[in-house]
């Protein structure tokens, strides 16, 4: 088993895993929203409707692929992949588990431990915006252009508070690499609290979560694709699998953001008070750590769905107002205070 083969397996595994999360998420979204709204949700395709995402996928595949009149053809085709691929590639730096010993070789459960870590994720988030804007502009419809316009303003202006919140994490742990940050979050802090970023940086966590909802276009911030005003915004003119790619990209984006939240603020794969490596074998420990990570990520994915079916939508200028007038000043103050504290304590 040469090194590159192991990496290939890891890449394929995380690619399939991201797809699986996105597929299951469509089902979770429809069932959870049904349960919250006193309905049943899909329960015909397979037990509890579990094959419904498969049915949706087939439906999207078989639909006719329409390119609207006088749309810019190349950009129209380029839009969806440009939106979906950055979301997939952001999984590369996600530490989805500790390490596993297989055939005498120690494998780190992370595709690549890049030392600039979540800066890479931020950069990919910015590229994702291009997918929306190009798709909106190329489909030659006023609603799409408005959707694309809103997408640019919203995502660019919410990258700033997200960056500020992440800067405070860098101040705390001194490194960008996600794996080191998760390693530093094991153990306890002030005696009883687990040594998580959430307890050290509550304000940073809130700013990051709000910015993450804006990044993923989830409800309070889903103006670029709201169906009541802009007839599903930038992907109005899209049809079969291109629309599928857009919707898929959205769920994969949610998965990435949930993974980043877990690894930065909730201690990645470690359980709070229990050090699993002591009483679990090397192989089972790797799988257990992966499982814990997935559980935490699942909770945050469910939170995305939960908030979506409870809260109304912002208006465009309130969205901007919240971003610039509330989150960025808060982020700066938070950065200043943490810098002060870190300077005094070390």
């Amino acid at each position, binding site marked *: 088993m040469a090194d590159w083969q192991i990496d290939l397996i890891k890449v394929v595994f995380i690619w399939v895993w991201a797809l699986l999360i996105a597929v299951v998420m469509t089902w979770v979204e429809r069932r959870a929203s*049904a*349960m919250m709204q006193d309905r049943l949700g899909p329960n015909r395709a397979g037990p509890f409707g579990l094959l419904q995402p498969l049915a949706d996928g087939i439906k999207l595949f078989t639909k006719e692929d329409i390119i609207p009149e006088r749309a810019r053809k190349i950009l129209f085709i380029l839009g969806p992949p440009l939106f979906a691929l950055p979301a997939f590639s952001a999984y590369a730096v996600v530490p989805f588990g500790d390490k596993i010993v297989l055939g005498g070789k120690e494998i780190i459960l992370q595709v690549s431990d890049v030392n600039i870590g979540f800066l890479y994720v931020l950069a990919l988030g910015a590229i994702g915006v291009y997918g929306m804007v190009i798709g909106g502009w190329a489909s030659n419809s006023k609603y799409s252009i408005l959707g694309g316009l809103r997408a640019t303003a919203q995502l660019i202006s919410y990258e700033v508070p997200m960056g500020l919140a992440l800067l405070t994490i860098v101040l705390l742990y001194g490194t960008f690499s996600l794996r080191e940050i998760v390693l530093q979050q094991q153990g306890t802090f002030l005696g009883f609290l687990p040594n998580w970023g959430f307890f050290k940086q509550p304000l940073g966590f809130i700013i990051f979560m709000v910015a993450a909802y804006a990044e993923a276009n989830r409800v309070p911030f889903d103006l670029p694709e709201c169906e009541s005003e802009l007839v599903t915004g930038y992907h109005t003119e899209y049809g079969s699998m291109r629309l599928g790619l857009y919707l898929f990209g959205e769920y994969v984006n949610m998965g990435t953001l949930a993974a980043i939240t877990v690894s930065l603020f909730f201690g990645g794969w470690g359980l709070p008070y229990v050090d699993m490596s002591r009483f679990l074998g090397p192989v089972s420990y790797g799988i257990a750590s992966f499982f814990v990570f997935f559980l935490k990520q699942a909770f945050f994915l469910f939170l995305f769905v*939960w908030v979506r079916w409870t809260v109304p939508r912002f208006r465009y200028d309130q969205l901007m107002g919240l971003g610039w007038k509330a989150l960025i000043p808060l982020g700066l103050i938070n950065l200043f205070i943490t810098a002060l504290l870190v300077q005094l304590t070390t």
Partner: protein
Amino acid sequence: MVRRPVVKKEYTLGERVYLVEIGKGLGLTWKHFVYNVKASFRKGPHTVPTCWQYPEDRREIAPIFRGAHMLQLNEKGQELCVGCGMCARACPAKCITVKRGKPAEGEEDKYAGKTMCASFEIDMLRCIFCGNCEKACPKNAIVLGQDYELAEYDPNLCIYDKKRLLANFHRAKAEGRLKPPRKPVPVDAPAPKKKTPSKATMTKKKGESGDSEKA
């Protein structure tokens, strides 16, 4: 330019911070979520009380529901319709065409009245299911049943002919979904008038409506 009243927004602290109210909202949806998840594990199709699995678990339909029409037979199996066409005149959508005919020699006993309807067609695409035909029918022959699945693949099938209406009746009878006889409506009849309305009341009525003509 539009005159608009100036609206001052004063929020309490709880409202100013988004998260307090959003938390309450999340609590409410969580309550519904838990209740419905428990309900969906219960046996039986009708688990979530407000949601029916349509083809398997049908809703209970009121006996006086205005659905697809049917031509009724009396107990002795005789057709009640005499082909008088009152329903065709009462129909606002003019979708009923009735042709009256004499019963053939041998089949007098198949019909309740002396005459019968040779052909009875209802264009279900035009019908608005208002029930005027049922109210207008003197013999209580045409009645709206409880059937609401009227979709057809071929528009010509949407013109119900006499055979189809009788088939509707037999199907409803078989499933015990016959229309209950209409309860007589208590009418607030004025004091019983004298045999022939006296000259005075006639002229008064005419007089009263007369002056309105003056305009």
